């Protein structure tokens, strides 16, 4: 092991003793030092720059969405705060009269859901077959 190490070191420093081991090491080192063939396309840098631009575009689009969300949330908060602070009570007009027919609204909602389910699970499935 020690010998092997010193042979490697000597060959690396260009001091070959022309033994079989040294000659074999010379060939190995020469091959190892050779520049590998290019592995990336010639347009590699341009591709990265393009990807980078896309990434930055996506980032700015994302931040716009975030800011829009923050804006909506703040507006809602302001609205709620204003309602609470001013003690505002909305006048529902004729809708106040419908307040006594809650069961009709519940039935209407449930009926629409039922119709959607029937459409999705029975009618569309059969049509697909």
């Amino acid at each position, binding site marked *: 092991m020690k010998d*092997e*190490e010193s042979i*490697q070191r000597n060959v690396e420093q260009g001091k070959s003793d022309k033994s*079989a*081991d040294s*000659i*074999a*090491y010379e*060939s*190995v*080192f*020469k*091959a*190892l*030092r*050779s*520049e*590998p063939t*290019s*592995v*990336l*396309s010639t347009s*590699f*840098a341009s*591709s*990265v*720059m393009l*990807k*980078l631009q896309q*990434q930055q575009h996506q980032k700015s689009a994302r931040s716009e969405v975030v800011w829009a969300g923050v804006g909506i949330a703040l507006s809602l908060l302001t609205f709620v705060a204003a309602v609470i602070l001013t003690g505002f009570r909305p006048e529902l007009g004729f809708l106040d009269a419908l307040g006594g027919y809650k069961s009709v609204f519940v039935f209407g909602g449930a009926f629409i859901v039922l119709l959607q389910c029937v459409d999705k699970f029975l009618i569309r499935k059969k049509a697909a077959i």
Partner: protein
Amino acid sequence: MVDDERALVTEILAGNMNAYQVLIKKYERLVGHMVAKLIDNREELEEVCQDVFLKVYNKLAEFNFQSKLSTWIATIAYRHAINATRKNRHLFRELPADNEGDAIALADDRLTSFEETDIHNYVLKLVDKLPPQYKVVLTLYHVEEMSYEEIGAITGMPEGTVKNYLFRARTMLKEKVKRIMVREPGL
């Protein structure tokens, strides 16, 4: 050199995209060679290398000039390539206990005459069959001419392990070449 790097990084951080293109052109060779030792598929290789440079761009503000820029970029490339391959492959194979074993089965026994090829290509083919961590260490040391310390920083291996990998790989390659030389004395 360090001043050049500092100037380049400062330019990029100031938003100069042309400077970043210069950086890519400067280090694409290093990243390409290194990632190619871990990923065989050409398309995947190109994509991983692109992702490496995207990561480099996004993290550039964190670079603190404690190491060379090349070492820092190579570290990102190595870790990214390892993560990309980890799902599909068992990366860190070891060299076979018997260094002359069949795990690195190559064409030598199939060739009727070694004159058909040359030692140079033979060694490169042998290197190609080595476990990835050996290939990376050999490339960084012999092609990129990095120190043990730099290779250790990039791969996260202790310096002793780097030296050991280099020693074992070179010994194994030498044995294979020697065998061919004995068989083909004219070479």
